[in-house]
């Protein structure tokens, strides 16, 4: 079974430029997460989707970040414009959420963003 797929794996952009990250979750997983992991720190949740609905976006900097999960499968996270402080690894994770199931989150390899 394929894991969580993310692309690109690496991205280098200049500040003020836009950037987008793509995530394909594990087949059948109805919940999708975007995390940001700064160097030497643990991941921090940016947004969580249950199917197509963003149920928790309280940590998403909405002035420059946006996300979508059309059709409840793939998701895209966008930053516009990027700032130097956005340099980090952006992780996507997915899980199956429902009554009577375990809720392990499976992470993709991440996209390492460098803003110069």
């Amino acid at each position, binding site marked *: 079974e394929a894991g*969580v797929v993310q692309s690109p794996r690496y991205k280098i952009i200049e500040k003020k430029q836009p950037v987008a990250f793509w995530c394909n979750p594990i087949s059948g997983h109805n*919940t999708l997460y975007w995390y940001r992991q700064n160097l*030497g*720190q*643990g*991941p*921090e*949740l940016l947004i*969580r989707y249950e199917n197509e609905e963003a149920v*928790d976006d309280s940590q998403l900097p909405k002035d420059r970040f946006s996300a979508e999960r059309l059709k409840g499968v793939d998701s895209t996270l966008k930053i516009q414009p990027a700032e130097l402080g956005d340099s980090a690894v952006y*992780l996507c*994770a997915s*899980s199956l*959420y429902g009554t009577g199931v*375990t*809720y*392990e*989150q*499976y*992470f*993709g*390899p*991440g996209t390492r963003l460098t803003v110069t």
Partner: protein
Amino acid sequence: QQQVKQSPQSLIVQKGGISIINCAYENTAFDYFPWYQQFPGKGPALLIAIRPDVSEKKEGRFTISFNKSAKQFSLHIMDSQPGDSATYFCAASGAAGNKLTFGGGTRVLVKP
């Protein structure tokens, strides 16, 4: 507010030794406590998890000890191997397990 505090930040252990990582949490609503292992350039991978209805869970060389009254839990890696060299993160969430709060991570180096 850092709701999950992890220590130490790094540790070095000899092959065959025991690695111990500790975490403390503040939110009494947390009731799912996973540990993740992360290698450089990879995403975190679930290692082992515990719920507060048990005080200990063992899977192979990895054991979680849980102290609900102290709001602390720890990971023990027995017979540490060089392949265990990685960064380990504790995390915690509410009952649904769908909003993980991570600790700061511990970089473990196992010397041969």
